[in-house]
Structures are given as C-alpha cells and as structure tokens.
C-alpha cells in the first residue's frame, strides 16, 4: 500500500465557471460591438456595417470564450487531488493497453510498444497489463512489414508474453470499430483499457497512476491525460510543440475546471472502464452517405457524451505527467489532419440533438463544429470589410482607421488593440507565470522563454492566414459533399521542397494576390492594413517550405523540458528505434534489402 491521489472535480464549481465564461464573453462582445458602432456610424450606417457588426461580434465572442479557458487555468486553483491508499495495479484487475494502427511505420510504432513494455517491466508492473497492437492496415505491404517487425519486437521484449497483435482484414468503423472489435472479442477479460495512438508514448508511472486513479473513483468512467507533443524537428513542428507545452496545460486546466465530470475524450492517452464503455459507447452508423452520414469519424467526443449520458464521469486529468504524442511537422500535414477533424466535427451536427445528452456535451459538440465554422466567418468579415470600405470611400477623402476617418480615432485603435489583446494577452500572461514561478529552467532560461514566446507569436501570426485558408477549404469541401475519409498521418520526415509546397498551396497564393489587387483598386488606403493577411498568403509556398525545415541553427529556440530532461520512456524509445533502424546502414549491403537487415539484424 502507498499513497496516491484520486481525481477530484466539483460539478457545482464547473457550472459557476461556465456561467462566468459566458458572462465575460458576452460583456466583452457587447463592449467590442459598442466600439464598432461608434466607429461605423460616423459615415452613416449601411447594411454592410450591420453584417460587419454581426460577424465581428461572433469572432470576438469566440475569441473570448476560448481565452476564458486560459484565464481560468491561470487564476483559479484546481481542486486538490484526494489522497487515497492504493494497491499495486495488479490488485485492481487487468488492464489492456490498446494501440490501434493503420498503415503506420512499424519500426517506429513497435519501438513505442517495446519502450513502454520495458519501462513497465522495470518498475515491476508489467504483470497487470497486456499490450495489444490492433492493426487495421489494409495493404499487403503494410501487413507484411508489421509481421516482420512483430517478430523483432517479440524477440527483443523480455515481457513478450504480454504483447498481442491482430489484424482486421477489413477496417469497418475505422478506429472506433477497431476498438469495438477488441471489446466484443476480449473485453470481458479486462477491467480497464488504456487507448493509445500509433504515435503515443506513456511513461510506466503514468500508466500505473491512471489505473490507480480511475480505480479510486468508481463514478469515473474515463480519465483523459494531457499528452505533451514530443520529437518535433521542423520550425513549424517545434513552434507547435513549444506552444503545446507552455500554453496548453494552462488552457487545459481551465477547460477541466469548466467541464467538471463532463470532460473531453481525445481518443488516445486515456483510460476507461471497459464495461461502462461497452454498455454506453456502441456507435451506430449515421443515416445517409458521407461526409455527414455513415461511420462516425470523430468518435471520441461522441463517446465522452455517451459515457456522461449513461451517468459516468469523464475527466480531464492534467496532473498526470509522462503522457506523450507527436504532432504534424509541417503546415500541409497540419492541414491534412484539419481536413479529417473538420469532417468529423461537422458530422456532429447530426448528433448534437441526440436524445438525453447532457447540455454541456451538446455545447462541446457545437464548439467543435464552430471551431471549423469560424475560419469562414473570419474570411467573410475580411471580405465585407473591404467591400464596406469601398462603399464608404466617397464619404471621406482618404485614409482609414485614424487618419481622416469620420468615426472617432480612439474607437478604431481601441477595437484593434482590444482584439489583439484577446489574442496575445493569455500567451504573455502564461509566459510571465513561467518566468516568475521559476518553471523556465526546463525551457533553457527566463530570457529564452520570453524570446521563444515572442517568436511563436510572430510565427503563428505569419502562418495564421495560410492555416485559415486551408480550414476554409476543408469546410467548403465537406459542405459540398467531399468525403476525405481518414487517411493515415505522415509521421516521417516532414521536410517539404518548394515544389511540393507550391503544388499544395498555389491556390492560396492566387487568392492572396487577387485579394490584394481588389484592395488596391477599390480601397487603396486599406493596402497597409491588408498586408499582414495578404503577404503570408501570397508567399504561402515559401512559408510552408521554409517552416518545414529542421531548426538546427536555432536549436535553443522553442526548447522544451522533454528535450532538456527527457522522460526515461522517451530515451528508451530513442534507443530502441535507433537500434532497429540503424542496423540497416551497416548490414544493408549484405542483405540487399535494408528493412530485412533491420529486422534480422
């Protein structure tokens, strides 16, 4: 017996936080709307002004609502975990660790299994866990590679008796169907299941802590950890990794406070009670054809809502460390992932009115839908603003926003400053928190944290219009009936040539150039204001290619603790992966085929 902690949450506090967030977001929106009205009514109120007011109010509300998570995470203390006496994980029943894979790179994925298995063995907890590689790979080539690398995995793993592999010849239901297939076949043998992604890595202590925490709280059906992004190599990837390491925990803490027991499930790096999950999460096919009908793509949010509907708490537990995943290393891969998520989230419009769902779960589903509806709203605001400036041009001789503008100068600047503040303030406050609380050490130094935050803000400002255009395209594709399916993620080297970037983003360049040409002809005074959006769009292929390159020259920038003081499981994965993939160079000539050399070597 030793002391651990049961997850703690207060549903009554969560409701207070939700109302607070709603009140603050509404008040902020009203204030911004008042500034806008002051600004717009100077030259007469038009229908376009009304459209701008509606669109900008929606944008400000959305920004503030998102920012509130960060503010709560910064300023409100989370409930202290309840100290409990716990047994060894073996005492709580067996746990299945599930790793669903779909056309992944076996040496990389299987090395993760080897690393986690090795770490569990090291701390003496391996007996309570079985690891299942659940393959949905459809090509003969992938299946053969997996079989070859499985042999290597079983040869190298001392705890091989706890490792299983099965492949479905047909991947019906995709990932959700893969998990469901396991539960239908073997679920009764286990008390809990930990679900991973192909790029997930979890420290053995974290795995054990998850079991102990869920076991200590019978009302909890699912416990979601906060995965930290690791192994980023490129400029874009490392900035994303830094942002996810610095900002996300604070935002997640605030979000967890608002969600209480109706929290999220992100589909991986989480543990659930198998019986509760089986009883409440059998997903039907939706009526109609994809993209809105058929199999549910973003199954995780729906499963969280269904668990809550059945009376089980779903908790986000940011306190459990040692949970890792990888992120996209370039904007094209990020956009590819966004296309999947966009289709999955918009499909939730068919589910949001499902019977007996909790109100908060409906709001969460709506929030996911709006995550992708907002980029078109931003774009519409830009277009309407340009059109509106043209109509207003005859009313004032030249200039805009504070030069010869009929509305008060201060209102225009206040509105711009206000929106910029909502965007940047949380990041600056979080950086200040890290600097003042002495947590900057893992990031290099206090100065380096500040420089990294400023560099991240600069880079995200440059990439934002490009990402926005990809998201707008994703939405347009889905609403026009395009079914993107669920293509596998690219987890290999993400460096892109200029040609590759050009072939994927030429249309953004065209849109940016056309937009700038329209502004120059209709409202020349707005050219300066449109450049921060138009320039990155015009230069999109260069931005995409440049940010996909490794950041070796500036290695210290965007440094994170997982690099300066890596967790043992990360080191173990690196060691195994290097051992498995490094042999090819030495033995490649002898065996002819480098992959065979790796497996046999």
């Amino acid at each position, binding site marked *: 017996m030793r002391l651990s902690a049961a997850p703690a949450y207060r549903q009554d506090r969560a409701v207070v936080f939700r109302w607070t967030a709603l009140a603050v977001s509404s008040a902020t929106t009203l204030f911004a709307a008042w500034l806008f009205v002051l600004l717009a009514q100077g030259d007469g109120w038009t229908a376009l002004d009304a459209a701008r007011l509606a669109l900008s109010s929606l944008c400000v509300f959305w920004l503030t609502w998102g920012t509130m998570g960060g503010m709560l995470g910064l300023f409100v203390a989370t409930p202290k975990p309840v100290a409990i006496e716990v047994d060894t994980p073996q005492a709580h029943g067996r746990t299945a660790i599930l790793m669903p894979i779909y056309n992944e790179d076996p040496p990389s994925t299987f090395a993760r299994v080897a690393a986690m298995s090795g770490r569990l063995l090291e701390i003496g907890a391996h007996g309570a866990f079985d690891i299942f590689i659940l393959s949905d790979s459809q*090509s003969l080539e992938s299946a053969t590679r997996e079989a070859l690398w499985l042999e290597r995995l079983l040869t190298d793993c001392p705890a091989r008796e706890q490792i*299983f592999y099965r492949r479905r010849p*047909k991947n019906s239901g995709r990932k959700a169907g893969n998990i469901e297939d396991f*539960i239908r076949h*073997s679920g009764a043998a286990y008390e809990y299941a930990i679900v991973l992604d192909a790029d997930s890595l979890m420290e053995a202590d974290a795995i054990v802590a998850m079991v102990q925490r869920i076991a200590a709280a019978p009302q909890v059906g699912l416990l979601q950890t906060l995965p930290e992004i690791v192994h980023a190599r490129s400029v874009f990837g490392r900035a994303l990794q830094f942002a996810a390491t610095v900002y996300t925990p604070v935002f997640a803490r605030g979000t967890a406070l608002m969600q209480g027991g109706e929290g999220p499930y992100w589909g991986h790096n989480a543990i659930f009670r198998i019986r509760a999950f089986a009883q409440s999460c059998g997903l039907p096919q939706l009526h109609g054809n994809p993209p809105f009908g058929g199999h549910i793509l973003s199954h995780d949010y729906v499963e969280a809502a269904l668990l809550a509907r059945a009376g089980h708490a779903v908790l986000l537990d940011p306190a459990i460390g040692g949970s890792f995943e990888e992120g996209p290393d370039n904007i094209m891969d990020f956009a590819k992932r966004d296309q999947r998520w966009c289709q999955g989230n918009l499909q939730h419009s068919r589910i949001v009115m*499902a019977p007996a769902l909790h109100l908060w779960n409906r709001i969460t589903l709506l929030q996911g839908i709006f995550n992708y509806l907002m980029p078109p709203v931003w774009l519409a605001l830009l277009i309407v603003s340009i059109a509106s400036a043209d109509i207003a041009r005859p009313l004032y001789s030249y200039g805009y926003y504070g030069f010869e503008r009929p509305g008060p100068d201060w209102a225009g600047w206040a509105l711009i400053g206000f929106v910029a503040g909502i965007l940047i303030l949380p990041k600056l406050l979080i950086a200040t928190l890290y600097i003042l609380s002495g947590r900057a050490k893992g990031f290099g130094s206090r100065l380096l944290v500040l420089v990294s935050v400023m560099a991240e803000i600069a880079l995200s400002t440059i990439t934002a219009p490009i990402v926005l255009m990809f998201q707008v395209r994703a939405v347009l594709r889905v609403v026009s009936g395009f079914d993107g399916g669920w293509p596998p993620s690219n987890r290999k080297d993400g460096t892109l040539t200029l040609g590759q970037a050009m072939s994927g983003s030429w249309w953004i360049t065209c849109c940016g150039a056309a937009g700038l040409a329209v502004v120059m002809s209709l409202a020349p005074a707005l050219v300066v204001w449109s450049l921060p959006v138009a320039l990155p769009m015009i230069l999109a292929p260069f931005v995409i290619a440049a940010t996909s390159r490794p950041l070796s020259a500036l290695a210290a920038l965007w440094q994170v603790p997982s690099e300066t003081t890596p967790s043992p499981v990360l080191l173990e994965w690196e060691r195994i992966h290097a051992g498995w993939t490094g042999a090819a160079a030495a033995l490649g000539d002898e065996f002819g085929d480098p992959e065979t050399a790796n497996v046999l070597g």
Partner: protein
Amino acid sequence: MKHDTLFPVEHLRQRALPEAPLAMPQQVLQRPFEWGSVFRLWTLVRLRRG
C-alpha cells in the same frame, strides 16, 4: 491493395487474443423524423396563441 487472405507470415509468434466476449449494444443517436411531431408543435403554437 486490399486482401482478405492470411498474410504470408501467419506462422510467426502471434498469439490469439483472449476469448472473453463483451456485448456492446448500439446506442441511439438519431431519432427518425415523424410528421406527428410537426403536428404536435403546430397544435402547441396554436394553443399558446389562444
């Protein structure tokens, strides 16, 4: 290329998954549309208006 046959290295050290079936009933997420609900809504609105 899809294939439904055993793949060539089936003889490797793969072990069968535990046989421990667990039922997973399908949940109701969409209600079929009923014209009766439109009539009920219309009646309700009419009653409210007096």
